[in-house]
């Protein structure tokens, strides 16, 4: 069944004049550099936690304006390992939002905690005004998500967390390079997790993840917990996992990081261009005061979302929904006991959101085609 779906997917993808992503096109731009990076690793004979991972960790920390970063196998494991480090006991609560990718909540459950959701505000991220009500005696941590590459309202969230002595773990999976008042995401909380999944702005050619932090204790713990709890080759200090960032991926990520600023700039220019052109038809993702968004996803809101999506898809524009079912309504969340009525803002949001194709190699011609279709949808319907 899966194989079948993948095949169907491939057939559809190849027929979209404006596909949702263009990974192959992007990779082609840096292929020579990538292959050189791979060759360097081969020549070194170091395939596990070698010099490339260490160098990428230094460069990434600098990029995030933090002292440290630790390479992890993927974004989900990054969240999982940081949460494990908190030593959650059964019933300990961690607060996050229900409109994220499932991993934000799954990591809490995996680490032995109970996911508690708080609704979002108009910007699509955690509503700080409702955060305080969700805090109980069992709350141990807060995971604000910088969804779509827009920074969450970190000033208010950090103020509340500071007052209540709660650990803040930024889920910056989609937001590398975003900032609020000039301060990068990843440098606000006690720690932050990043994903280098292929659809992320800074991506590996497979899975990859990072944790950034200012806290050397968190670093020391993660360096063991990502590698079986081993303090050295012979001594195991605690039971843990193999969640290492691949040396090969780190080598390729260093290539990508050198291009990230240019690619982010290209994304931002295209996104702001979309905003200008689409504003007459749909609600566009304007940046709030002090925000610098990186538009990992470009999400508009429409009251006639499903019709619009179908209209675009039928005419060769691959538009998607991130995410169609909020986490609290997934079968996996059944035992948490939430219902449809719990998060009105999230539900309202979920019915309207539509992600349009946006990537550094998207051409103005392709973009104009998308805009024309949106315009003709509203004029003819």
């Amino acid at each position, binding site marked *: 069944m899966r194989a079948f779906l993948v095949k169907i997917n491939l057939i559809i993808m190849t027929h979209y004049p404006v596909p949702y992503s263009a990974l192959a096109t992007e990779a082609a731009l840096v292929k020579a550099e990538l292959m050189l990076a791979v060759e360097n690793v081969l020549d070194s004979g170091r395939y*596990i936690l070698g010099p490339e991972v260490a160098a990428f960790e230094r460069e990434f920390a600098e990029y995030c304006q933090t002292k440290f970063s630790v390479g992890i196998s*993927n974004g989900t494991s990054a969240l999982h390992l940081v949460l494990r480090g908190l030593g959650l006991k059964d019933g300990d609560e961690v607060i996050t939002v229900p409109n994220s990718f*499932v991993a934000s909540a799954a990591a809490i459950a995996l680490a032995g905690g109970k996911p508690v959701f708080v609704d979002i505000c108009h910007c699509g991220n955690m509503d700080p005004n409702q955060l305080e009500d969700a805090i109980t005696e069992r709350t141990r941590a807060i995971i604000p998500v910088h969804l779509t590459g827009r920074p969450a309202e970190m000033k208010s969230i950090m103020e509340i967390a500071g007052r209540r002595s709660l650990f803040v773990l930024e889920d910056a999976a989609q937001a590398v390079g975003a900032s609020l008042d000039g301060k990068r995401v990843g440098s606000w909380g006690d720690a932050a997790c990043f994903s280098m999944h292929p659809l992320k702005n800074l991506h590996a050619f497979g899975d990859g993840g990072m944790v950034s932090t200012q806290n050397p204790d968190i670093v020391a713990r993660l360096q063991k917990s990502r590698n079986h709890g081993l303090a050295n080759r012979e001594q*195991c200090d*605690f039971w843990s996992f*193999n969640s290492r960032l691949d040396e090969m991926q780190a080598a390729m990520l260093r290539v990508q990081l050198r291009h990230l600023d240019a690619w982010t700039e290209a994304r931002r220019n295209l996104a702001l261009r979309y905003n200008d052109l689409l504003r007459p038809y749909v609600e566009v993702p304007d940046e709030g005061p002090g925000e610098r968004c990186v538009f990992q996803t470009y999400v508009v809101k429409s009251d006639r979302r499903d019709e619009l999506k179908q209209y675009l898809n039928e005419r060769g524009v691959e538009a998607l929904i991130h995410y169609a079912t909020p986490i609290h309504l997934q079968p996996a*969340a059944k035992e948490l006991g939430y219902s449809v009525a719990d998060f009105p803002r999230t539900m309202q949001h979920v019915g309207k959101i539509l992600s349009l194709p946006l990537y550094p190699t998207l051409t103005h011609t392709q973009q104009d085609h998308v805009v024309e279709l949106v315009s003709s949808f509203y004029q003819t319907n």
Partner: protein
Amino acid sequence: MQVKYSYLDQQFAEVDAYFKDLHELVASGEFTLGPFVEAFEKKFASYLGVKHAIGTNTGTGALILSLKAVGVQPGSEVITVANTFIATVGAIVAAGARPVFVDCDERYQIDVTKIEAAISPKTAAILPVHWAGCPPEMDKILEIANRNGIPVVEDACPAVGAKINGRFAGTFGKVNAFSMHPLKPLNVWGDGGIVVTNDDKAADFLRLYRNHGLLDRDHVEIWGVNDRLQPFQAVVGSRVLDTVETLVEARIRNARLLDVGLKGLESCIRPPRRPQGYREVYQLYLLTASRRDELVKFLVSRGVEAKVHYPIPIHLQNAARDLGYARGDFPVCERQANEVLTLPAHQHITPDQINFMISIIREFYR
């Protein structure tokens, strides 16, 4: 003369073919599961002659997923050995269960005469390890497991290509795990793992759980993890798999040369018993030696990268403190921790290097 432990620079000296494959991967943009991973999974399943192979991010991940797939859960107990890599036991704890150790035999494998006494009503799986690439007595393990209605999960992480009477390691248990770590017989350029099974239901669970519990893009059936095999590594693994039988044969040849070359020194140093019908792949070439630490030092000083796998049995690790074991609980395993050493016997070791190692060992014991 130098005898290096790692051989990766030699194994991957010629990379043109790999790069051709990688170019294809990069040109496809298929970096998350997809056709390259599926092709490798099919190829590995057909190599072993099993119905399903499911690629995971690591061997550790493969073990965790295998245990979960046979129903291991919080409160369960899982029986294994204390002389293995830490991940075997880490995986049991990660699945929420309690590790229960039994001692090993003189082949460094689980002592099948001790398993039954370790079984309790909470035992949810028996996890024998093909330690060092050598199969344990799988027929006896299966017999005990079947009699007690307990599933077997093989930790075949170090043992791609190992066999008992022609039957591959990883085809005895219900759900079984392999590693493709760079120092395993089937290796990739980083981490990688595979779970194999003939059970359709287990395979469905494994495919769901390794990818966030996602039924499709929008539906999350269970809380899952991200434990996917990287397409990059699948491409490499696929090509290495073509060579695996040849390189295993080379390892077997080297092990025989060492076994024979050390004859006459049995009172000081000896290989384990190697019963008929067992095809070992020598992920580690293990020996039992007297004055082990001195010998290792001597070998290293003469350019031979000898190692110890491992000097501290797992039940005596800091991590195992809460399990309540003490020194003396597993006398064979504890004795071996002081006596065992590993010599380089991989596929790139030459007969000259083997003779060199033998002469150094003879010199040491003279």
